């Protein structure tokens, strides 16, 4: 079958895998073709599925916009400079300063753009740390079980018990971190236990499923099984959690900068808000400096809206129960946990 249809589409590929001896199939297939299929299976297909939902489309476009702003934007837009315009210039008046200026005459639009990389770094650090720890802990606990499971889950319990924001405030006060990567990591410190627990129960559920048992019985090693069977199953889940972690890090970091717990050396949206609040008195007298506060607020709400929309869409697209509900023949199956808070 594979010789006849080397450029088969996803469906036929799957059929041929199930229809013939997988190993033989693998030997006959050139590496490039294998890579193409892997790409199709793991990347292209989920992407196509994801794109079919309006939430993922709009959310994805939003996320992309912010990513471009943080990468290409900083090259195109010159950094803000003191006295490049009048103080407290209103927005939409002078189009060289589209969003107005702050108390030092710096363009707010430029400041917004040049704040993005710091936000991205924090979010990225948060994602890497929380998802990394969660995946590691959750997978190992679920797969190994026994004493290791107990120890790891007790650890997660302790961390869940630590009150999130107060802990971060204390840590921020202790370490006074300036580097965005460290800030992101500290803020994400309470993000991993929930995800780790969820992953663990996913792994536990999968571990007992027939196909994993079958994979083990034909002698596939644990990492192979994890890689081939478990990862694709939990990947969407991790992706959704990553988006959630990014939102949480952005929310909390801005809050902490705004209330002045975190020291700052570079611009970011929270810092802008804090300056607008403290130096521009923007909350009490928004007439003069309101726009200085407003645009960072909008930037944060925009990025979190994009991320939340994106992950909601993903959730809908990858949720097997929802898929079943919307397909024609599959009866509603009962496995699935709460749709997440």
């Amino acid at each position, binding site marked *: 079958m594979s010789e006849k249809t080397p450029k088969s589409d996803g469906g036929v590929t799957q059929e041929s895998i199930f229809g013939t001896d997988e190993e033989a199939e693998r030997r006959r297939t050139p590496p490039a073709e294998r890579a193409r299929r892997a790409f199709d299976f793991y990347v292209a297909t989920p992407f196509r599925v994801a794109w079919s939902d309006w939430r993922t489309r709009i959310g994805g476009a939003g996320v992309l916009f912010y990513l471009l702003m943080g990468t290409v934007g900083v090259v195109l837009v010159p950094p803000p400079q003191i006295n490049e315009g009048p103080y407290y210039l209103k927005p939409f008046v002078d189009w060289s300063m589209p969003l107005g200026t702050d108390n030092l005459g710096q363009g707010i639009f430029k400041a917004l753009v040049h704040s993005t990389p710091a936000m991205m770094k924090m979010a990225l650090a948060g994602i890497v740390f929380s998802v990394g720890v969660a995946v590691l802990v959750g997978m190992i606990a679920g797969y190994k079980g026994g004493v290791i499971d107990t120890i790891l889950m*007790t650890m*997660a*319990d*302790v*961390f*869940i*018990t*630590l*009150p*999130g*924001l*107060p*802990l971060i*405030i*204390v*840590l*921020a*006060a*202790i*370490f006074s971190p300036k580097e965005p990567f460290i800030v992101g990591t500290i803020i994400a410190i309470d993000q991993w*236990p*929930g995800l780790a*627990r969820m992953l663990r*129960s996913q792994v536990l559920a999968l571990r007992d499923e027939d196909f994993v048992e079958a994979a083990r019985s034909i002698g596939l090693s644990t990492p192979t099984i994890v890689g081939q069977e478990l990862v694709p199953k939990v990947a969407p889940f991790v992706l959704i959690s990553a988006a959630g972690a990014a939102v949480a890090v952005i*929310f909390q970091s*801005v*809050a902490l900068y*705004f*209330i*002045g*717990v975190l020291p700052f050396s570079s611009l970011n949206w929270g810092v802008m*808000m804090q300056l607008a*609040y403290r130096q521009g008195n*923007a*909350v*009490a*007298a*928004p007439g003069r400096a*309101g726009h200085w*506060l407003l645009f960072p*607020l909008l930037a*944060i*709400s*925009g990025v*979190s*809206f994009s991320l*939340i*929309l994106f992950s*909601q869409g993903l959730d809908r697209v990858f949720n097997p*129960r*929802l898929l079943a*509900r919307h397909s024609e023949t599959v009866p*509603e199956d009962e496995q*699935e*946990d*709460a*749709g*997440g*808070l």
Partner: protein
Amino acid sequence: MNYYIRRFAQAIVTFVVGMFITFALYRLVPGGPVEQIMQDRIQRMQDRGQQVDTRQVAEMAEQLTGINPDQPIPISFYEWLRDIVLYQDFGESILFQDPVFDILFRAMPWSIFLSVYGLLLGFTATIAVGVFMAWHEGTKIDSGLTVFVLVMRSIPYYVAAIVMLSVLAFQWGIFPTGGRAPPAAQPGFNLEFMTGIARHAALPIASNFIVGFAGGAIGMRALSVRVIGADYLRSARLRGLSTNRILSRYLTRNSILPIYTGFMLGIAGMFSSNVITEVIFQYHGVGWFLLEAAVNQDYPLVMAAFVFFSGITVTAIMVADFTYGLIDPRAGTGATRESF
């Protein structure tokens, strides 16, 4: 019964371990509390041109923080804990120069007031809106509300708080701009004081409401959709039960089950985010004191506030586990159940 004792012991252990981690972290950082206070004082003395006696300053710092730098951390942790448990002695605040216990004890009711109200309103709305969306699944009402809920979730609660403060308090003067109660009013059960409290709390509670409401409705909707598909709901409809009964006793009751523990964890989250809310509204609750203490290196106050927040979290989770059996008759002793 055995389960309850075990669960309680587990809660105590997690609590103590959590406290120990924070305690140790605080101590181990280069330039811990003692060092920081010393530097602060030396700086001040030098500014005033005074002679600096390092040893004397060190002694003073040790006394202020109640820390003996030569003592191993586990022992000082033990002593710190012992003083708290036996004598409710959290030390004295460096910043406010009052016993920490008194400060926090007075601040506590205010924080609980804000959090509990925000929580009750937020969760009620979450459940109601989620069930409502599920009941109208696939209609325009459903998609409209979904967008609304997503937007609500995307706007950080403190953003809403800032906007409300700026517009409703500063611009329109409908609400006070900060504080817990009108300064002129006589504390007690008089009208002026009570309405004053309500008006001061309105905006912080509204901001906490947003925290409680947040994204929960979407998850609640998913759970309700699932219950709507259940056999017992169809059977209930055919038996001629009223829509009200089906909504309350069948749909809501059963959709809450999986989300219940989440709500309890939400209590902890609510108290956490209340810190920011209190700071924004200058509302002198535990959160506000925590922040002041953290920024000013008031180490005893920070640790005590931290005990408060950890205590709330541990208790909330434990209560969730204990009470789950009451709301879900199937949940035996909960020994095998996932608690999170």
